[in-house]
């Protein structure tokens, strides 16, 4: 791995620690700085409020000249998130800029939650409900918010067990 990418990621981490955007936490894996785990809290006053959504960011040695792969690990119900958790977001594809960092990526994803782009549907059911039946859409979102707590707790227990 190039040291350049590693150093840039360490700078990203330092920036995150010094100036953490609200509702976001992220850290690289202990043994691989190219893989990061992150949690985005659902923004207040949105159907995603109180959700704790886990994501994985996978960087390549070409970072920051190429964007990382980012996907939700927690179940997500959103017009721009595919069933496998991958996210359809312009800055992670053709509008990527090497000036973005982990903090900027996660902040963009957080704001995407409540501002979906119906023009690039990744989940057709979510897109359709978002446009035609907001009530039902919000109901589905609430369901995955509740699931996110359960999944979060489970994982914590898992880790605790492993630690013992």
């Amino acid at each position: 791995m190039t040291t350049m990418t590693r150093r840039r990621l360490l700078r990203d981490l330092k920036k995150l620690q010094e100036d953490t955007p609200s509702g976001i936490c992220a850290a690289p894996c202990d043994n691989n700085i190219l893989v990061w785990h992150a949690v985005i809290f659902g923004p207040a006053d949105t159907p995603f409020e109180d959700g704790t959504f886990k994501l994985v960011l996978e960087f390549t040695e070409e970072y920051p000249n190429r964007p990382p792969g980012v996907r939700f690990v927690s179940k997500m119900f959103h017009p721009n998130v595919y069933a496998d958790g991958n996210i359809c977001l312009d800055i992670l594809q053709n509008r990527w800029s090497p000036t973005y960092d982990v903090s900027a990526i996660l902040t963009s994803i957080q704001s995407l939650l409540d501002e979906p782009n119906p023009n690039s549907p990744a989940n057709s059911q979510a897109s359709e409900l978002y446009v035609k039946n907001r009530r039902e859409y919000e109901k589905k979102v609430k369901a995955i918010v509740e699931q996110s707590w359960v999944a979060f707790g489970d994982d914590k227990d898992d880790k605790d067990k492993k630690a013992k």
Partner: protein
Amino acid sequence: MEEQTETTMAPGERMDVDGGGYVPLQPEPEDDEPLTGAPFVIKKFSPVFFWSWDVHSDSCAICRVMLMEPCLNCQVNNKTSCVVVWGECNHAFHNCCMAAWIKSGSSSSGTAGTGSKCPLCQAEWIIQRVGN
């Protein structure tokens, strides 16, 4: 961001420092005293001056290192010959960082046209100057 630099110069030599503090380099001659009879002659002196970068941001938005320092890549490879490139949009980056971005091929995707874009403002990237 300020850096202190010490330079040795001959007396009377003029120096232009962009954006830096001005240091009078010539000793003030005293009118009523003939120069030949001066009790001492300055042979050499070392002015200390301060300077600063005249750019919007003093760090490279790509590698996050100060523009006055070599880029992250050059630091890793122990190279010191790292220069700064300014675009027509007045954004500045390390030349290495910008070159790597253009070379990656991602810089021209997204919108129509084949030219590269400034990573900060998405304006067409036209080099204004390269230097230190």
